[in-house]
């Protein structure tokens, strides 16, 4: 009787431990499936035309997403231009100046803002920019992306600034330089790798965001013509083509997805390389 119960216990042990390994495998396999399909389909349909041509109307074959690629680059650049200073300054405040309570409130706000669904951010950008200007615009989409980006940059900047040893701050102050110089020329450079990592992660996130662009950027087949005019974006075009009944457009969607996935893969691997290098 005792032997049998021991046998049962060790059997359950093995089965359950095996299942946890299986769960990990499932998660990794799903990733493999998504990446695999995207790469295989994307490689089949991507070509030089995709980068140099504009989108073609239904019925014509070929065409590319030049304008949408440029549009995404513009949106991400302006979004970063808005979000990085705000995020970095917030991170500096949280790690260097904030009293315990103020910092806690702001950290909490950052976490909440990071959890706000991107579609709600899009509605917000619509309400504060698109409606007053009476036009869908590149700037409203950039602001929406910046709002998504700020908490990510702020929290990673804070985390990496905290890793800078206190002795460096003390040494800087002991030299007689002011607090702000010691922050800007000793602490921030010391945390630069981490800050850059955070910015890259945030860029990777907003580059693929679609939901906030639907009613801010809207899409524009004729390319960029001013910040207050509608603009096309890669993820937005992928979304529209994915729902299209035409084979040709679906193929373009796969090609666009491939490009986006490659961008994000490269950023993620770069980030991992940077962070593991720092640990050693």
């Amino acid at each position, binding site marked *: 009787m005792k032997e049998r119960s021991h046998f049962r216990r060790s059997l359950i042990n093995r089965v359950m431990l095996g299942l946890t390994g299986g769960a990990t495998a499932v998660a990794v396999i799903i990733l493999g499936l998504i990446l695999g399909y995207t790469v295989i389909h994307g490689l089949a349909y991507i070509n030089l035309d995709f980068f140099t041509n504009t989108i073609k109307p239904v019925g014509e074959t070929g065409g590319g997403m030049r304008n949408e690629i440029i549009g995404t680059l513009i949106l991400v650049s302006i979004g970063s231009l808005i979000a990085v200073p705000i995020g970095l300054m917030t991170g500096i405040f949280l790690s*260097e100046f904030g009293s315990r309570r103020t910092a806690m409130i702001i950290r*909490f706000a950052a976490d909440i803002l990071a959890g*706000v*669904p991107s579609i709600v951010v899009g509605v917000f950008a619509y309400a504060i920019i698109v409606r007053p200007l009476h036009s869908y615009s590149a700037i409203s989409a950039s602001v929406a992306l910046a709002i998504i980006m700020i908490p990510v940059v702020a929290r990673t900047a804070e985390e990496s600034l905290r890793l800078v040893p206190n002795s460096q701050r003390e040494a800087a102050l002991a030299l007689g330089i002011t607090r702000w110089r010691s*922050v800007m020329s000793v602490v921030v450079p010391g945390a630069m790798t981490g800050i850059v990592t955070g910015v890259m992660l945030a860029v990777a996130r907003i580059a693929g965001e679609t939901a906030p662009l639907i009613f801010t950027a809207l899409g524009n087949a004729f390319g960029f013509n001013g910040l207050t005019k509608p603009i096309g974006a890669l993820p937005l075009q992928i979304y529209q083509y994915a729902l299209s009944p035409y084979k040709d457009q679906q193929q373009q969607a796969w090609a666009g997805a491939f490009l986006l*996935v490659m961008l994000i893969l490269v950023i993620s691997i770069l980030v991992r390389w940077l962070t593991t290098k720092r640990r050693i």
Partner: protein
Amino acid sequence: MRSLNKTPTDSLSSARIRSIQYSVFSLGIMNGVKINLKVSNPERFPIKPGKVDFRNRNYNRLSDLVFPNFTLFFALLMVAILAAMLIILSIDAWPSVLKIGFSFFVNRTWDPVKEIFGALPAIYGTILSAFIGLIIAIPISLGAAIFLVELAPGWLRGPASFLIEMLAAIPSVIIGLWGIFVLVPVIRSPFESWLQNNLGFIPLFQGPRYGSGFLAAGIILAIMIIPIITAVSRDALKAVPNQQREAMLALGATRWETITRSVLPYCRSGLVGAVILGLGRAVGETMAVTMVIGNGYKLTASLFSPGTTIASKIAGEFAEAATPVSVGSLIELALILFTITLLVNVIAQLFVWRMSKVKESRD
């Protein structure tokens, strides 16, 4: 220091005070005595900006007053964005709240032409798809987290964690694209027909099989929340002190018994927080769900039926909404979504914080 602030000081004496401060500071370092000189707190500085002598070589002290407040301004900007979101969405939703009132939550039709706006099917769809997503995601993510913390050999731990986090980095629209062309056909043909043939007596698995519907949306959501639940519960498991495991193993427990009776109960609140964070993500997820849920608008028990979530309703109709009331009612939906995710995230944060407090007290 406060009293010094009030006494009238000319620039010369204030400079002297500063040099005293510095010497105390450097002495503290030299003697290895930790003097807690809070330079960080701007209130501690005895000099008011107007009294700074700019010929003094320490004139950039002014910046020490300005800079912390400058960074505080940006930090508060983020809080302001959050507050503005709540206020502006509330104001914009007001016309529809006035016009529609409570029937918004119980009405089943959404007809902009007749100006009938009922959000019940969208709310139902959000809850149902998030629920399916959680049911699928919880065992997989907990299993993966347990494997990564308790079992995985060192060489596997880093790469496996990285791959699972990679899943979170893939844009929603690409998962949706994959969902439309790869997942939905698989769900329609072997998966749903199997469920219907074997479990068809349950109302959940009855009705026509489209492929795209609540089930597809739930599976897609599961894929998208697995990384966050895994990552947060992995951190929670890591925070469990090793003595807990050693004590249990010393009693003769198997590893699985150690995990279920000692490790998991210890980090319960962190795990609950992880699941709630996943729920928050699932409720707000838009693109991938919009692409596979099939855009039906009805209340039905069938998981195979096309449906709508709050987020996909907004994504699908916002650009076409014309009248103020229809825009207002979509903004009201956004406000509902915002409120739900706000509550869910606050609750999750509290759970995770409780866990990290346990960790801190251990350190």
